[in-house]
């Protein structure tokens, strides 16, 4: 079986399982909506002149981070509890292919949740101010960030699911490692949302620079994760 077919098989397994139970998508989606409600609580007493657009991109990425922590944990807990991980290890599939299969599956679910949540967020918080940049720029920033989150998150979740304090360990590992990526994509997203109000006349240039740095982070860390995954999954 070629690597591509192995990868497709793992991906299809995840998708079919999700379509049957719809457990992960519903819980992630609902969780994201709850986070939006908490955001309203947070800004509800702010001054009337407070422009939530300044922190809107940060809030959005915060919601995505919390949601993906939930989703990553769940996706790998299932594997472990039902012995699927052992079965995968027994079969002659290359370890990195398992990594890619799971990572792309997690990325897909994360993107679906984002497609639901981002318009909701816009509708709730950004209707008055609107976006300075085009929507596709925001979508691109979301994509680059999600790739990093799904990739590194899959690897960290594979480690954390084998420890005693599963969710907690994932959060403790996840946040410091993802910090540079989150910093870069928040900068890129803020450039799209606020434009020159924050970036003094050259928001597009700042956007592309931040996005480039985020893409650089993705390449380096995903390469490292690809190389190190077989050690984790074998242990």
């Amino acid at each position: 079986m070629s690597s591509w077919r192995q990868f497709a098989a793992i991906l299809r397994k995840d998708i079919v399982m999700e379509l049957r139970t719809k457990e992960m998508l519903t819980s992630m989606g609902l969780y994201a909506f709850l986070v939006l409600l908490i955001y309203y609580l947070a800004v509800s007493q702010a001054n009337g002149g407070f422009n939530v657009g300044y922190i809107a991109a940060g809030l959005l990425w915060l919601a995505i981070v919390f949601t993906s922590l939930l989703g990553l944990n769940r996706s790998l807990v299932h594997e472990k509890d039902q012995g699927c991980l052992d079965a995968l290890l027994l079969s002659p599939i290359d370890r990195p292919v398992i990594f890619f299969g799971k990572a792309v599956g997690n990325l897909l679910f994360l993107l679906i949740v984002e497609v639901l949540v981002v318009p909701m967020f816009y509708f709730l918080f950004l209707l008055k101010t609107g976006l300075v940049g085009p929507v596709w720029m925001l979508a691109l920033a979301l994509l680059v960030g999600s790739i990093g989150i799904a990739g590194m998150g899959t690897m960290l979740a594979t480690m954390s699911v084998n420890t005693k304090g599963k969710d907690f360990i994932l959060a403790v590992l996840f946040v410091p490692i993802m910090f540079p990526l989150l910093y870069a994509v928040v900068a890129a997203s803020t450039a799209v949302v606020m434009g020159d109000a924050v970036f003094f006349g050259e928001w597009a240039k700042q956007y592309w620079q931040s996005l480039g740095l985020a893409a650089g982070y993705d390449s380096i860390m995903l390469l490292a994760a690809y190389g190190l995954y077989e050690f984790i999954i074998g242990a």
Partner: protein
Amino acid sequence: MEATARKTFLGIPVDAWMYGLLFVGTVLTTIDFVLAFFVAPLVIGAGAGGTAVINGVAVSNQLLFSQKIFYFHVPVAISSFLVFFFTAYYGVRFLMTKDKKYDTKARIATEVTLLFVVLTLVTGDIWTRFEWGAWWVWEPRLTTYFIMTLLVIAYFVLRNSIEDEERRATYGAVFGIIAFLDAPISFAITRLIPSSVHPVVLRTGGGLTGVQLASFLMGMFGMLMIAWVVFQFRQREEFARERLDAAKAALEG
């Protein structure tokens, strides 16, 4: 249980080298300190009495002396990063050989890194009070060190939450490698993307004169020696403890 051979280097036992290096390192660092306080001039443009206005904040001259922390802060910071490299290095060696001693070395390197990172944060805090009149600034270097602290703490939290020894070692090695990759990336990204919350204004006209540079370099080497020696002593303590445990187990069994 076999007797451990005394390792020698150039005919002198390694133990003696360690004590010697510790002595030299401490002496150098102390000389650095003394020179910094008594010989090196105050920062350019500052008088010995009264206050100076830096970036619109009046800084009393007591705090100007905190510029001297620079002589301690930079060596400690660079040492912490160097030792962190060894965490990743021993992690790689462990993954290559599956030899437990590399895991022990990686853990000790991380402990020493934690020590130096905490020192860096504290001295850096004093440094920012001098430079910008604020106790904490989300400046690239400080932010990166904050991340490094979290990474090192995460390393220990991860290790403590795993029961199985081999898995603990493997996960520790992998996370150590990733964490070491993450730190410079974090530094690069926070430096390249300015934070619009605190615009960083660098003070111009600050440089190192000859005497300052000499004492600084001395302190740099001294601190590196101390870092190395702390690592070695800790390592010997750990290996001795392992031999003790093995001996106890052999006696009981």
